[in-house]
């Protein structure tokens, strides 16, 4: 017999978006948060550099500039009304975080300190603007901690270490979720009026990634299984500065503080490609040029990496070259970037204060995901019809505020702004809605069947081997540079792996803390999302933002200024919907 719970509002995922939603929903209706991790383990905690808002604490800034930068950064695929909401509300959201206790760094007069970040500019001078509000290089950690602290203060109800297996979707309406309690293996049915998905990204389909082991796309895969679409899955961001081979992120804040890319010939190559923003060009562009340098033989020692150089004397030399009067020293860097300096020391045995750091692009962020409207309501199709009672916010959602490429710091902006909107919206809905009837035993049985199939499967395939092969093919063919032939090869490989996945065998047949089983189940989700990603990438015969097709190297606004939507009902099906444009007309993207 499954355990049964009833809440007006359910939040799945306890990172920034989930906790923000929970704080606002729980002030209004009976709310619970379900998370497969302890909330403080969520990946928001690893965000480093900052959260942008046009506070103008250090120089002139306007939210409209932030909006333009976001749209241009997204290569004009963003839905512009959503971006305007995000950038306008970012200001109050950051102030709200400060009021909650977030320990932002401060200006000399005690206001929130801000710094430069890739793609954020003064729209008049086109030069970088100080917009990213920061707490050293652990801004995400501070956001996650602060939101969780407030949840404790408000006595929010948590179900920690519960894995959601299935969404209860019936007749176009969502009535809750089915989850398994990891500690016991017991199945729990959560009956709700409103459910918000905030489970973050799914970068584990790649090998070199900044993403945590737990980022396996469980809920987007569940959405897909329930016959609902995913949007813009071909757009995945490769962050230019991952620790070589490991993929651990070294924040763009390093470049915000003056660090530069250096190739094997000792050249600051970004100045050649992007003369105005140089090393602070958006991420998609930097990642592409890093690989271009490598392909043309200018990697370090002819290998597949370049340097991120933030030795104080190097930073100061380029400040001087750029006519920037600022000068910094080692102590300054140690206080502004303590964590990433430590990452290089611990994982690479390199001291960034005295040596340049080997880096390579790393799979980082999903611009695509579960389609929503500006109120975080999940969309059932390309016409904007909503799934009643189902919401999504944060990285897992596609509003779309990031379009084809997200600007640095905007993930944190997205999750606080839309987390809050989602929490309020779902609570308002739940207040006037009533519980729709569900068959809890049937729901539990259907979810359990997914797990029992794996537990009892007696094939000879090890999940790990399948995961490894998936990650390798995704790295090779669905990375920064893509071709039609490569994507087809990837798709074939993924289909082969999906076949083999039916014949896996796990060692642990138990119920309590069966992480063997959960990892195998997560792998199934990753395979489904990898399939959709490669399929969408094959469909998009143009290059835009994070999606670069060598066989179609130009942006094609005539045929592809639109979002993709993919369904998987038996077989894959793709449709599209227009981009919403308000006041910023598509233009060539130069920096």
């Amino acid at each position, binding site marked *: 017999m499954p355990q049964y719970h009833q809440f007006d509002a359910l939040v799945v995922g306890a990172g920034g978006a989930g906790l923000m939603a929970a704080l606002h929903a729980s002030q209004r209706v009976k709310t619970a948060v379900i998370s497969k991790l302890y909330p*403080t383990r969520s990946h928001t905690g690893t965000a480093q550099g900052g959260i942008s808002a046009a506070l103008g604490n250090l120089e002139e800034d306007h939210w409209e500039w932030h909006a333009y930068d976001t749209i241009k950064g997204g290569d004009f695929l963003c839905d512009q009304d959503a971006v305007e909401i995000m950038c306008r509300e970012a200001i109050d959201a950051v102030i709200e975080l400060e009021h909650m206790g977030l320990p932002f760094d*401060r200006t000399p007069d005690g206001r929130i300190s801000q710094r430069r970040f890739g793609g954020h500019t003064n729209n008049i001078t086109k030069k970088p603007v100080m917009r990213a509000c920061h707490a050293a290089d652990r801004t995400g950690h501070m956001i996650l901690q602060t939101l969780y602290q407030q949840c*404790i203060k408000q006595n929010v109800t948590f179900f920690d270490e519960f894995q959601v297996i299935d969404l209860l979707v019936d007749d176009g309406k969502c009535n809750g979720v089915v989850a398994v309690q990891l500690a016991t293996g017991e199945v729990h049915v959560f009956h709700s009026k409103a459910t918000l998905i905030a489970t973050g990204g799914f970068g584990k389909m790649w090998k070199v990634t900044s993403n945590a082991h737990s980022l396996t796309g469980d809920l987007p895969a569940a959405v897909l299984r329930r016959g609902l679409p995913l949007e813009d899955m071909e757009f995945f961001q490769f962050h230019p500065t991952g620790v070589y081979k490991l993929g651990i992120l070294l924040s763009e804040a390093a470049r915000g503080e003056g660090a530069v890319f250096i190739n094997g010939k000792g050249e600051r190559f970004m100045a050649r490609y992007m003369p105005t923003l140089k090393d602070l060009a958006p991420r998609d562009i930097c990642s592409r040029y890093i690989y271009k340098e490598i392909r043309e033989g200018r990697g370090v020692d002819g290998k597949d990496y370049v340097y991120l150089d933030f030795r104080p004397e190097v930073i100061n030399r380029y400040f001087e070259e750029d006519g920037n009067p600022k000068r910094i020293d080692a102590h300054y860097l140690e206080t502004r970037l303590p964590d990433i300096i430590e990452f290089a020391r611990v994982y690479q045995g390199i001291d960034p204060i005295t040596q340049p750091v080997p880096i390579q692009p790393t799979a980082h962020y999903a611009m695509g995901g579960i389609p929503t409207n500006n109120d975080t309501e999940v969309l059932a199709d390309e016409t904007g019809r909503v799934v009643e009672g189902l919401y999504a916010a944060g990285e897992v959602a596609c509003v779309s505020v990031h379009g084809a490429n997200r600007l640095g710091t905007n993930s944190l902006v997205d999750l606080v702004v839309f987390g809050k909107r989602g929490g309020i919206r779902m609570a308002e809905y739940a207040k006037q809605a009533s519980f729709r009837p569900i068959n809890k035993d049937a729901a539990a049985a259907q979810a359990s069947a997914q797990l029992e199939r794996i537990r009892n499967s007696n094939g000879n395939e090890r999940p790990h081997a399948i995961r490894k092969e998936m990650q390798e093919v995704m790295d090779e063919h669905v990375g920064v540079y893509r071709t039609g032939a490569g994507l087809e090869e990837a798709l074939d490989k993924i289909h082969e792996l999906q076949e083999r996945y039916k014949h896996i065998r796990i060692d642990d047949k138990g119920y309590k803390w069966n992480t063997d089983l959960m990892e195998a189940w997560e792998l199934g989700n990753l395979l489904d999302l990898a399939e959709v990603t490669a399929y969408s990438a094959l469909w998009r015969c143009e290059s835009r933002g994070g999606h670069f097709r060598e066989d179609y190297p130009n942006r094609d606004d005539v045929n592809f200024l639109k979002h993709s939507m993919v369904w998987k009902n038996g077989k894959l099906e793709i449709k599209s919907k227009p981009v919403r444009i308000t006041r910023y007309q598509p233009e060539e993207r130069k920096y």
Partner: protein
Amino acid sequence: MKVTLKIKRFNPEVDKKPHWESYTVEVEPTDRVLDALHEVKWTQDGTLALRRSCAHGICGSDAMRINGRNMLACKTLVKDVAQEGGTITVEPILGLPVLKDLIVDMEPFFAHYRAVMPYLVNNDPLPANGRERLQSPADRARYDDTTKCILCACCTTSCPSFWARGEYVGPAAIVQAHRFIFDSRDQAAEERLRILSEPDGVWRCRTVFNCTEACPRGIQVTKAIGEVKEVLRTGVIQ
């Protein structure tokens, strides 16, 4: 390089008590101990249970006892704890009930955390201009060290006072209290100090320094505890 992982195993569905099992794996010297554990789990014995997520020392999931000392498996390189052909012993952190293999019940730990009011309390009206509260860089720096805590429990579960008496709030909870007591924006220091002056509060700390050594974030834990004791002694927060 070749290393042997000697892991303390316990499966609640089968075992009456824990036992040791050894696995030999081939890893890079610069691999993390977490990578070596995954190598065991993914290629030799899938039943091995552990928590992990970020794999770079930020989420606080994988505190464990490695060669007898508390560390994050993801922030410890194999070459730093073993030589070629050597053995690494891995066991769950001490003082919390073991649920399975390296997974312990964290609830008592989080209960202590919640007990110290780990959140900002400020009942003044918000600034009328709708903007942030002001805080000088010096006031912000005062509590910087204790904001780094990731609640991994390395400190608390390395503390002999905590092993002896689980009711002791433990270093991590005191670190959290410190983070707010010394925040110029906060107004609940008195209440937190009252909680920490109780028999299971700060005075159970015997200044053994295990916590400071164990902290993977480099927080001066013993110093923070000392500063809280000092406030209790003098009644002055500075």
